């Protein structure tokens, strides 16, 4: 069999930290093959992709044994820019993948670096936009694009370079359902062109019929290798035991478990939101009680984040009122009553230890209560640690701890499970149960249907 890519008994550990270690990884991919690497967060799948695009060992240093071959040539003998001509990489964060401030320049960026003549550049930018169906994004400022659109431009920039191998590192983790659907189409295009594709991903529903082989990694080793057929035949029980996400993306079913009565704790009445004179959403009406976990759903751009910001008192409502136990709430009162756990929690962590974070900027912190809350959220053991060294889930819980110490009644979560594996997602839903039991009202904006089915008691559809 001819091989496009072969990893030969690779082991690696990053300098300094013990994270992301991989051990004795060997596999090969034939030309035109599509391999998916999956597994829990931190299992080492991203590390494997970094071996193949040469970022390891040149960019991330560490202890490496074994070799990677592309078309029979050892990558160790090659410069990164030489590897880049053959292997195109798309990463998970759409915000940090672009260099230019306009879309055309970004699509051309890789080709410009390789000295493609100008006439050819123009032709290929146009052809790329046609093939990927993004002509509407040409000639725009990148900062005006949504996350999904940015990811498309990042993909287009690699596509324009026309590499033989595509390496995608959790490409879906910041995308909504529609954008994932487009991503799936892109991968289909690549397959039809006979490209070799390697994808590290924990979300599998959109890949299940594209992948020829699925490798399951755990603690840095490949533990299972399935063909597509064998993978699809896994039972739900087996899948869950391996901590893998659902293979189907079904509309969530919810049996409304909330106590619906006339005395709503919170009531949103004839509410209109937007910026300045521009209405984003009008005539919103909604009631909820303490203990409700409410999924706010709707397509991208429908105004979910505007609603959240208004609900939290971060911006003014255009018309209408919010009542808390029958009392009208102004912006200042809402700011006091609500707390938002942001999609990127890093923006809301300011201090240099977990314990200090919980009392950051508070005049006379109640240390007894701090201890109690930290214990409740399994953070007490970590209280001396720097927030930046925590895992994504732990950071989220820390933000929740802050909200509990500020005695907030309403908690708003913005995409709390983007990029999380099954277990971490379950932990998020358990956390929400706990908060609901304490009598909090939780609003949750998410594209994660699995989370909605698991955690939410109600759905608040927008648009």
């Amino acid at each position, binding site marked *: 069999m001819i091989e496009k890519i072969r990893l030969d008994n690779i082991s690696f550990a990053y300098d300094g930290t013990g994270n992301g270690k991989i051990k004795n990884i060997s596999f090969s991919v034939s030309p035109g093959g599509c391999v998916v690497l999956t597994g829990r967060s931190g299992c080492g799948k991203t590390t494997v992709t970094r071996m193949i695009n*040469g*970022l390891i060992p040149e*960019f991330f240093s560490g202890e490496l044994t074994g070799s990677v071959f592309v078309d029979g040539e050892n990558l160790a003998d090659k*410069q*990164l*820019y030489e*590897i*880049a*001509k053959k*292997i*195109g*990489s798309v*990463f998970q964060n759409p*915000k*940090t*993948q*672009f*260099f*230019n*401030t*306009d879309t055309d*320049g970004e699509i*051309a*960026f*890789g*080709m*410009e*670096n*390789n*000295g*493609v*003549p*100008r006439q050819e*550049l*123009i032709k290929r*930018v146009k052809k790329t936009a046609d093939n990927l169906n993004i002509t509407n994004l040409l000639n725009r400022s990148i*900062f005006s694009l949504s996350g999904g659109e940015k990811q498309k431009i990042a993909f287009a*920039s*690699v596509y324009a*370079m026309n590499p033989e191998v595509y390496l995608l590192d959790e490409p879906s983790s910041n995308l909504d359902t529609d954008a994932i659907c487009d991503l799936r189409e892109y991968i289909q295009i690549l397959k039809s062109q006979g490209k070799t594709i390697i994808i590290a991903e924990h979300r599998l529903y959109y890949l299940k019929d594209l992948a020829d082989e699925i490798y399951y990694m755990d603690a840095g080793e490949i533990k299972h290798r399935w063909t597509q057929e064998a993978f699809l035949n896994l039972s739900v029980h087996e899948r869950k035991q391996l901590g893998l996400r659902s293979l189907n993306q079904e509309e969530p079913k919810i049996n409304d478990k909330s106590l619906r009565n006339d005395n709503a704790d919170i009531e949103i009445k004839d509410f209109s939101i937007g910026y300045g004179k521009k209405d984003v959403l009008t005539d919103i009406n909604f009631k909820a009680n303490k203990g409700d976990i409410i999924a706010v759903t709707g397509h991208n751009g429908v105004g979910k984040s505007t609603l959240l*910001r208004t609900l*939290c008192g*971060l911006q003014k409502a255009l018309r209408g009122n919010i009542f808390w136990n029958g009392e009208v709430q102004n912006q200042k009162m809402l*700011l006091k009553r609500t707390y*938002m756990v*942001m999609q*990127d929690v*890093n*923006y*809301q*962590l*300011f*201090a240099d230890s977990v314990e200090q974070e919980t009392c*950051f*900027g*508070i*005049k006379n912190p109640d240390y007894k209560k701090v201890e109690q809350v930290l214990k409740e959220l399994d953070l007490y053991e970590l209280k001396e640690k720097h927030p*930046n060294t925590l895992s994504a889930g732990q950071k989220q819980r820390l933000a929740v701890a*802050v909200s509990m110490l*500020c005695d907030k009644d309403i908690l708003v979560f913005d995409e709390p499970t983007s990029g999380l594996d099954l277990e971490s997602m379950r932990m998020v839903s358990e956390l929400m149960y706990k908060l609901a039991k304490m009598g909090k009202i939780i609003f949750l904006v998410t594209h994660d249907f699995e989370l909605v089915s698991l955690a939410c008691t109600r759905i608040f559809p927008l648009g």
Partner: protein
Amino acid sequence: MHHRSRSGSFLDPRTFLLLLLIANVITFSQISLWIEMGWIVFVDSMILLSGKYKMAVKWILLFCILLLLQYIVLPASPEIIATIFVILVNYSIRMFPCLLIGSFMMREISLRQFVLAMRKLHFSEKLIISLSVTIRYFPAIKEEIYHTKDAMSLRKIKSSKKLEAMLVPLMMSAAATAEELSAAAVTRGIENPIKKTSLLTLKLNFNDYACCVIGCLFLVGTFILK
């Protein structure tokens, strides 16, 4: 705007760089307010010609206010107020030629044109890459500050801690952003030593030559008066 069809801007980035250099000479030689005023009228007319009427009016008004303060209001105000503001106003007027051409350049020139101009002027590739990453990072900072401000409003943070609260997330994300940006760049061949090409072209035209000649006249004027 018909000027924009060419390379997208009223003047070539190289012309802007030359004008910026001349503005610096005028500012730091400090010989005559008349030269300075002449320069401001010249640049402001260019802004008008390029079709940015609002911007032109805003800057000329600002300059008039500064002159008014310097020569009429401050000499007539109580000594305490005068001493406080005189330095600020004086320096603003001095720096005005640079500020004006600088902000005009920022409005007109895209990062990509700037990079191409630097390549044409044979700046070193290292300098170009680090400069362009720096410029690219500014809008990202703006976005981050917006989120951090939200996060701060949701918590009771005493004023003495506000600056710290602003800076910490920014620093933390800066390191991660720098790493991810560089990874994206090297996997798209930024280190390739081959001569790089560009989707854009730069060509000097009448506007550029005219502005260069006028700019040089200012330079000559400055040296003669000295």
